């Protein structure tokens, strides 16, 4: 089964993959918003999504480390990795203390910040082009870029909020 969805919040994405698993669909592959599923026992797997430090890095080291812990690396998209563990093997949470969770959210913010800058630059370039030329097509692109920029800004805000919550928890 193939499903199209755009997620920019990995926590919500994890919940959705778990829900699909409960319905008997195991996530298999991701490409540009397209999720491939194959049948499984309802609730067979739990999912987690992780962001690697760098994308050339030691992927096989990471994968074999996880494999030893009963965690399977299903797919990788850029620096993002999709992981699953059999529900029968116990609960599955990649990050279990505030320090490592904060570290992850900081990594996610830095990842999206680069895109935010690129999108914002493109947005203003399109905006000036739209104003100067007054072309309808340019206007649509401007609007689209604006929406994407806001969506990314939203992720950064959400992560910041989560970091704040975790820091308060620690105190």
């Amino acid at each position, binding site marked *: 089964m193939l499903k199209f969805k755009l997620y920019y919040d990995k926590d919500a994405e994890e919940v959705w993959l778990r829900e699909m698993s409960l319905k008997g669909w195991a996530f298999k592959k991701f490409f540009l918003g397209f999720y491939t599923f194959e049948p499984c026992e309802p609730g067979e797997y739990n999912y987690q999504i992780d962001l690697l430090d760098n994308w050339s890095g030691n992927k096989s080291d990471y994968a074999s480390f*996880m494999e030893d812990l009963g965690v399977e690396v299903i797919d990788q998209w850029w620096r993002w990795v999709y992981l699953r563990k059999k529900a029968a093997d116990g609960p599955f949470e990649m990050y*279990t203390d505030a320090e*490592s969770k904060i570290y992850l959210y900081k990594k996610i913010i830095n990842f999206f910040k680069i895109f935010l800058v690129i999108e914002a630059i493109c947005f203003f370039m399109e905006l000036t082009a739209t104003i100067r030329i007054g072309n309808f097509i340019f206007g649509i692109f401007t609007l689209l870029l604006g929406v994407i920029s806001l969506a990314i800004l939203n992720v950064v805000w959400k992560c910041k909020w989560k970091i704040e919550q975790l820091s308060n928890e620690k105190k």
Partner: protein
Amino acid sequence: MDNSSPLTEALFYILLAVRTPNHGYGIIQDINEMTGGRVVLGPGTLYGAINSMLTKGWISLFSEDKESRKKKEYLLTKIGREIFEKEVNRLNELVENAKKMDKGR
């Protein structure tokens, strides 16, 4: 994290778990047992902690089983032991001072 700040629970217990050569799964199990199931390290937390401690030289790679599967074992280093002992001294100080609570002044 600089060397003088208190260790996180995860780092403290990982150091303890690699006093003899230990691999990822063994570290999680040992910590689970030592704390009666209170501290169960997630794979991502463990991976990050191990890599940062390898970089800082607190632990070292002990062996790598290349034949069957790549199961790496880690071992406490001299620096790691010093860090651990310093932390234990700090904790002892806390406990010693805590006793004042019941003794009065």
